[in-house]
């Protein structure tokens, strides 16, 4: 089974970023050149940018009308007020909501790793880009780092809410984004692993309980909270804080917790918030 620790070692031995190690691995696996892989990843980044822009405009409601317009509300506070969390976190929250709202409206997004958790990675990347003035090609490399974390999680555990609960989706997204943010912040390969491990540990056990089975409540707001959590994890890793439990073990534990989770809490809308009185009323109204 693949291990992230092996990639960290390869990166250290060869003086590469994790993203570059992942690119080499994919070149061999897919028999494609680095240029071809980067071209496709740049296209993903472009779709991410478009989904952020579309969501921030705030004119898109979901089919149910349950969601939409919240990203614009958060974004509007940037110009008007001294915000509680400052422009970095405010921007990160708004961007995550934006992409998740576009997704709920059946708009075009990049699954990262899934559609339900699609807001976290673009929000973290574009926020770090703005804050640290990152070059486009470095963002693309960081996307490969994030993709690498996602691949390891899919190999060792799961990225499916139906199999592992929300921890497998939003937890994986936060881990992927934290690793990318740590790399963009100048962190070492080992620090990307620490960032991802800290992020995933913080979301272990989270259940998948979508109200009425829709990817709206609580999914959209969890994208925003997981985004700030990913940035927090990366900040700690960049400060040199290690994860006591290594990333590969945290991933294995996530998979085990997923297996222990009852079916009602794995994307069946038969437990959790979906079965709250209000959740049931929403279900009766829309499904």
């Amino acid at each position, binding site marked *: 089974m693949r291990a992230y620790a092996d990639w960290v070692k390869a990166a250290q031995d060869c003086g590469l970023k994790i993203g570059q190690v992942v690119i080499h691995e994919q070149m061999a696996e897919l028999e494609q050149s680095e240029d071809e892989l980067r071209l496709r990843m740049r296209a993903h980044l472009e779709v991410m940018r478009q989904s952020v822009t579309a969501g921030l405009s705030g004119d898109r409601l979901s089919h149910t009308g349950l969601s939409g317009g919240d990203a614009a509300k958060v974004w509007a506070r940037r110009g008007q007020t001294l915000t509680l969390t400052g422009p970095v976190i405010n921007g990160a929250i708004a961007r995550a909501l934006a992409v998740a709202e576009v997704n709920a409206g059946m708009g075009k997004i990049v699954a990262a790793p899934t559609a339900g958790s699609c807001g976290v990675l673009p929000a973290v990347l574009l926020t770090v880009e703005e804050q640290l003035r990152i070059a486009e090609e470095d963002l693309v490399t960081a996307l490969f780092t994030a993709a690498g974390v996602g691949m390891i999680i899919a190999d060792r555990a799961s990225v*499916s809410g139906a199999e592992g609960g929300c921890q497998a989706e939003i937890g994986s997204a936060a881990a992927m984004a934290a690793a990318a943010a740590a790399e963009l912040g100048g962190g070492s390969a080992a620090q990307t692993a620490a960032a991802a491990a800290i992020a995933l540990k913080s979301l272990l056990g989270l259940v998948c309980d979508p109200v009425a*089975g829709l*990817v709206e409540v609580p999914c959209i707001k969890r994208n925003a909270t997981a985004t700030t959590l990913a940035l927090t994890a990366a900040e700690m890793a960049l400060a040199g804080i290690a994860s006591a439990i290594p990333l590969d073990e945290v991933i294995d534990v996530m998979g085990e917790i997923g297996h222990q989770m009852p079916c009602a809490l794995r994307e069946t809308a038969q437990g959790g918030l979906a079965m709250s009185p209000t959740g049931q009323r929403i279900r009766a109204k829309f499904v």
Partner: protein
Amino acid sequence: MVGPSSSHTAGAVRLGKMARTILGGMPERAQVILHGSFAQTGKGHGTYEALAAGLLGLNPDNERIPEALSLAAAQGLKVEFRTADLGDVHPNTVKFILTDGQERNVEVTGSSIGGGRIRIERVNEFPVEITGDYPALIVLHQDLPGVVAQVTSLLAAAQVNIAQMRVAREKKGAQALMVVETDQRVAPAAVELMHKVPAVLRALVIEPWQER
């Protein structure tokens, strides 16, 4: 891809498209049976539209997926959906019963395993494992000595390396299904040659999937 769920929307499109490929073209009638989380939350996730979109041959990034049910009606594809317990399978599993209105019928069962990745588990009565991550060759043939060797030597002659391979049969001497996942694409000329092997009833190629 188009939202809202990679497993319930993108994966569902890919499952529909894979079932259509295994049938060998556009179905005229489709019975679609949803299991588990697909059955419970499919409506909210746009899974019905996504499965129909796949049967129509659309890709997961097509922005017409939300209108797939009316597209199907316009193109003469009759789709019926129902839910059932398909037993001990992945929570996101669907069974297609397809007919092209002429001689071809097929039953395909597959699961959406997360992040838009899929696994076809069963074709008619044969257990299989097709992910679409690699090019795949599917051969329906009589269970006779030498057929596997004939097919694999045709692959060798075409310089195609086998990544994984599985053969399942109904019973000794009856029909069997060979699924070969390969590193290289299998050229149409090689598939033509396979059709000349007397025991081969049908051979088809599944192109690998890659999100664009």
